[in-house]
């Protein structure tokens, strides 16, 4: 499995070689159709899975609510929040490492913001800035310990998972005697900082559509969906940035190299240790970005926020065609994976299935999505079954 996939990071470029060749009639240099080339991209399988998921939910009861503007916003915001994590996590997995501490980092970053604002009276921008500084430190330590000790990152970050969650509970209980920090957004000196993370864009457009009677409005004439939430904007920004770095920069090639074969990569001069440490910082920072969005949206921080998000992010990346063994995958695929996960998670509620059975369906759908993805990729890459 790994043999076929740890080859060139950009499979779509491979046919270029074939076209130049003068030999004809040899299957290795045969022309490939545009469709096959499209299907050979790492995110092609997940795209098939995404379309399948959309169609399945369209056929189930509750589809008209799920695909209404309001319903779509519920799964899009869920996908967006997960997608922010998944983009960073995908880069790290491609580089051959795991970060299990991001769920706890979400809780911890929220607590840092909450305590600095409510206890020390700091403005939001300073509290948020401090949370990001803490994230850089946490990510740096995760990366440094992993690289220096060669203990699997799975274990190192599992320890951070416990330490960060424990710190959140310990510090919050010691300072406030409770486990939630409310009233964070009551009278901050800089409300514009909050707007950067919790506001909506295109509010005017949505109000206009409401006046035209195209979308539902409340009693006061304002639309139910005020606009595109900032979490979706951040998702697009983060995904674009991560995708650009991975495919268009030298650093992106280093990421593939570090995950493909770290020894060879080091021998040809890739600073593997530095790449990995930077990516651990990136995942911690992504977790903090999500924490900031949640705190600004909820107006409160809670010691248990983000529980199990580390697994959801990994699931999204894997559904999106990122290989757990490293060296293969794309950021766009991870974004599609997050979209499938969000759609499934919210979609099940709209179907009216008794929620006692929720996890059974979630598990089955995730498994089917990954199988469809693998099948599509295997067909496109011309793998034989059993290989």
């Amino acid at each position: 499995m790994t043999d076929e996939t740890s080859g060139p990071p950009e499979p779509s470029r491979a046919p270029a070689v074939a076209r130049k060749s003068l030999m004809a009639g040899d299957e290795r240099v045969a022309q490939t159709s545009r469709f096959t080339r499209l299907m050979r991209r790492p995110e092609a399988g997940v795209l098939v899975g995404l379309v399948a998921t959309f169609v399945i939910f369209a056929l189930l009861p509750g589809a008209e609510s799920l695909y209404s503007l309001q319903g779509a916003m519920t799964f899009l915001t869920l996908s967006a929040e997960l997608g922010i994590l998944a983009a960073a996590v995908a880069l790290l997995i491609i580089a051959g490492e795991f970060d299990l501490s991001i769920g706890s980092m979400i809780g911890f970053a929220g607590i840092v913001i909450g305590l600095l604002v409510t206890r020390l009276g700091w403005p939001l921008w300073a509290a948020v800035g401090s949370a990001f500084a803490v994230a850089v430190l946490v990510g740096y330590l995760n990366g440094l310990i992993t690289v220096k000790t060669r203990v699997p990152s799975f274990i190192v970050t599992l320890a951070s998972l416990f330490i960060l969650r424990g710190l959140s509970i310990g510090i919050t209980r010691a300072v406030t005697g409770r486990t939630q920090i409310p009233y964070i957004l009551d009278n901050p000196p800089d409300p514009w900082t909050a707007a950067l993370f919790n506001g909506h864009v295109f509010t005017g457009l949505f109000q206009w559509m409401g006046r035209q009677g195209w979308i539902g409005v409340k009693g006061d004439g304002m639309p139910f969906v005020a606009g595109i939430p900032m979490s979706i904007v951040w998702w697009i920004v983060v995904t674009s940035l991560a995708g650009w770095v991975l495919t268009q920069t030298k650093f992106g090639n280093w990421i593939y190299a570090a995950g493909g074969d770290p020894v060879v990569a080091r021998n040809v001069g890739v600073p593997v240790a530095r790449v990995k440490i930077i990516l651990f910082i990136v995942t911690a920072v992504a977790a903090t970005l999500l924490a900031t969005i949640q705190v600004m949206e909820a107006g409160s921080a809670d010691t248990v926020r983000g529980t199990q998000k580390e697994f959801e992010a990994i699931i999204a990346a894997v559904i999106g065609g990122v290989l757990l063994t490293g060296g293969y995958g794309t950021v766009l695929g991870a974004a599609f994976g997050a979209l499938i996960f969000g759609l499934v998670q919210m979609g099940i509620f709209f179907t009216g299935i008794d929620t006692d059975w929720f996890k059974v369906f979630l598990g089955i759908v995730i498994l089917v999505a990954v199988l469809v993805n693998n099948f599509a990729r295997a067909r496109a890459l011309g793998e034989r079954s059993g290989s």
Partner: protein
Amino acid sequence: MFERLRFVPAAIAALGVLAGAAGAEGLKAAADVKIAVVVHGNSSDAYWSVVKRGVDDAARDTGAQVQYIAPQVFDSVEQARLIMAAVATAPDGIVISIPDKDALSTAVKAAVDAGITVINIDSGEPQGAELGVPLYVGTTSEYEAGIKAGERLGAAGILLVACINHEVGNISLDQRCQGINDGLAKAGGASEVVAVSQDPADVTRRVEAFLASHADIQAVFATGTASANPLIKYFDEQDLWSKYKLYTYDLGPEILQSVADGKMGFGIDGQQYLMGYLPVTLLVQNATHGLMVQNNIYTGPLFVDTPEKAQAVKQLSKEGTR
């Protein structure tokens, strides 16, 4: 046989007339009523499974379409999103719980603004009122119940108590412990919070360690069945009943058995079956007849503090309604 057959068309005609009458007033037949229950507790939790039992029974009795929705792990942000999803399905009524007002306010307001009748259960009575939720069904505030419990302990001469929190992050449990502490304070006592997880082995290990390092503790107070059940087992195994008193919030078969055996001091009953059953029934009435209760309904706290009381409730608890 013929007589029965003749009744069928008559019954259908009568139903048609009834439905027509209801339709004329803009009201619905019960079978067309859609209700969403979006709470913070998953039905895998012993306490919430009783709530869900109440919801399911009310759905069966009324014939309405009712869905019980909860986040997979305790997460108010997730719950808010689920409420938004429920609003998008335009139900006739929504039942919610409010464990974190800040996180849920936008979603709750959206439901109220959409003209959906909202009923708040279990937690967040004052917060619900601030957000425009017209009715609360549940115990008096957790804090008040805790104070009452603390006063009872203080009156019995128990002044140093370990309060076990198995759901760190849930403000209700914080308030339960805070209430116990403040109730004890009236008699000059105090309590300390022991944070544990929902894992039974973890509960016993941490309480064991806490008791070993705090020799003067007189009683252990569990904040729910998730922490009480493993502790009952632990107390039985180590025969600690003569050394420490054990109390708990909420009821379950094991707790009732222990109180009935004269071991546990008391369990506090929130009668959460009613928190599931009543709101659904009320919302169906609201949709079919336009009726609504005008005052909050308190289902607790009810102290189950004698073996006789416990024995009486035990059978019902096994059936999942207490």
